[in-house]
């Protein structure tokens, strides 16, 4: 098993730098998720860890060994690719046994290892089939099995569920976590889906424009996002933002009215004039609630989800807030409503730097 240390790693493609000063420590046995939108550099960082791409600057360590110049085949990693990367001309058994043959294991050992993995992944009946004779979920499990049989020090997974339908994705999420608990390897998982990140990661690395924005547990990222990007990216529905300016000692002015802030919040804001208020959907209540800030808005859309509903409200031309609330009859688009905001729970961001205050 291995700790991974990424120290000041950067990656260039020609004149373009796609990863900037990445620093990260991944602990032994940890399940860490790299998450971010397309082009954020998460897959590039994973490929650098794998050794599939050379590092332009900085250092990478597995435990105390510097692996910058170590070939991918010598890193003792296993990788699950986005479109599986199965060998089409080999059976499921051969796909899983391919790496073991390279290591010179004898036939019995190979047979035992492959059959063990196949049993764990419910693939025992498909060992003689070719990848094209399998469904998407089965192929994904073969890819997982191929990685598992090697008992690697590091498990790398590059958006392994993105080609599956929603139901299968949930099922495979559990499967991957189960496998991880079983094999006890350090796992680095790349996804653009923040729900996947939140539900799977021991810790999450949020990336944006080639930089690591924040590293933390799912709770830390949700409760204490370090900037507006992380706040907007983590959480479903996404956090809503309202532009505000300082109005007197204990208040903030917004486009639809003034809201009061606490002394602690006022202290955090300091001398800043313009800022952004970030409000999570669960901190908004429909109607007037005593002791909370009131904002008037227009209902734009109501999303019915069964037990609850999301009410998307417009405050101004560029300002939307989404409220999560229990089912309430009678809300219609274009209806004028008053939203009560729990100001103790809101997040404040500098309007210019977008850093959390």
């Amino acid at each position: 098993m291995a700790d991974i240390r990424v120290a000041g790693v950067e990656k260039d493609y020609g004149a373009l730098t796609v990863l900037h000063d990445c620093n990260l420590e991944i602990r032994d046995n940890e399940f860490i998720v790299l998450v971010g939108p397309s082009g954020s550099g998460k897959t590039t960082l994973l490929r650098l860890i794998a050794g599939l791409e050379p590092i332009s600057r900085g250092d990478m360590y597995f435990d105390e060994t510097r692996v910058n110049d170590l070939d991918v085949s010598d890193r003792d990693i296993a990788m699950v690719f986005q479109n599986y990367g199965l060998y089409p001309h080999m059976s499921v058994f051969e796909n899983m046994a391919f790496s073991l043959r390279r290591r010179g294991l004898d036939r019995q050992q190979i047979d035992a290892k492959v059959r063990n993995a196949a049993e764990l992944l419910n693939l025992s009946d498909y060992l003689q089939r070719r990848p094209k004779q399998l469904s998407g979920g089965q192929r994904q499990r073969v890819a997982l099995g191929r990685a598992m049989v090697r008992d690697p020090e590091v498990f790398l997974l590059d958006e392994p569920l993105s080609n599956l339908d929603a139901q299968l994705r949930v099922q495979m999420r559990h499967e991957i976590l189960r496998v991880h608990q079983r094999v006890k390897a350090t796992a680095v998982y790349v996804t653009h889906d923040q729900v996947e990140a939140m539900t799977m990661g021991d810790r999450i690395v949020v990336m944006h424009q080639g930089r690591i924005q924040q590293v933390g547990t799912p709770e830390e990222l949700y409760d204490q996002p370090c900037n507006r990007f992380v706040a907007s990216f983590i959480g479903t529905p996404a956090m809503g933002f309202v532009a505000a300016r300082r109005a007197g000692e204990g208040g903030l002015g917004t486009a639809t009215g003034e809201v009061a802030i606490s002394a602690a919040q006022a202290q955090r804001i300091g001398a800043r004039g313009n800022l952004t208020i970030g409000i999570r959907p669960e901190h908004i209540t429909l109607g007037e609630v005593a002791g909370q800030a009131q904002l008037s808005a227009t209902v734009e859309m109501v999303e019915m989800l069964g037990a609850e509903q999301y009410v998307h409200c417009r405050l101004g031309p560029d300002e939307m807030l989404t409220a999560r609330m229990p089912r309430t009859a009678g809300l219609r688009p274009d209806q004028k409503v008053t939203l009560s905001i729990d100001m103790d729970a809101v997040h404040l961001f500098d309007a210019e730097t977008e850093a959390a205050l």
Partner: protein
Amino acid sequence: MTDAGRQGFRHRQSAGRRIGRGLQFAGLGFALLWTLAPLYWMVATSLKTELEATQLDPTLFPHSITLQNYTGLAGGSLPFMQFFVNSVLTCLVAAIVAVVIAIPAAYALSRAKFRAASQVGYLILIVRMFPMVVLLAPLYLILLTTGLLDTHFGLIVGYTTFGLPFAVWMIKGFIDAVPIEIEEAARVDGYPRWQILLRIVVPLIYPGLITTGIFVLMEAWNNLIYPLTFITTLDKQTLPAALQLTFTGQFKTDWGGMMAASVVTTLPLMIAFFTVQRSMVRGLTAGSVTGT
């Protein structure tokens, strides 16, 4: 539009469609005739007697069918079987050599990231842009100085020179279509590049290799100018050159014998073509398969 008007419009439309379809069939029929007529003429003439084959008023169908021209090939004074073996040997070896050399070259061009990759690729292709005759003199001199003139090995070198660039580019296309993740998975599994090429890439592009091999083989098989130039001993000659050298005399051409020899020359290629037809189609459409 009224119902009657609509019906009339539909009627006109379907009549127009019928005429279009008729024209299509007529065009196809003409193309088919154009392609098959020489083949028919070759087969028909090979079955005619010498008198009938050379008469001034040619007959469309042979009056009396004879296999004399074919038996003449096997039992005549000319070493026809030797020509056949020469052709098979030189062309087959040239095709295999071209494909075997082209595989690593194409792999490097497809996957390796080096500065002049595309320039090198085009440089290889430039050989194909010269007419075959232009390469004749330099090749002749090379073979002469290396002592390979009038040898099958020299002829194979000649065939390969012209077939290799084509093979490299064709195989590069097939390798480009293999998803890179499959190779990366093999790298992660611990395999070195050359083993990945042999154990993963080659089996995946196998139909493409057959297709390429057949194309090189066909080109070599039909090549007249190289054997005529590089081979001086009649016994070492290949079929096309032998046909030209032996059946065409100064005062008389043995049309029947020549056509019988032509049939025997064409037949192996046609058989090879039809045998691997399926894999050729698969090879030519390899880009549409994503490897799973």
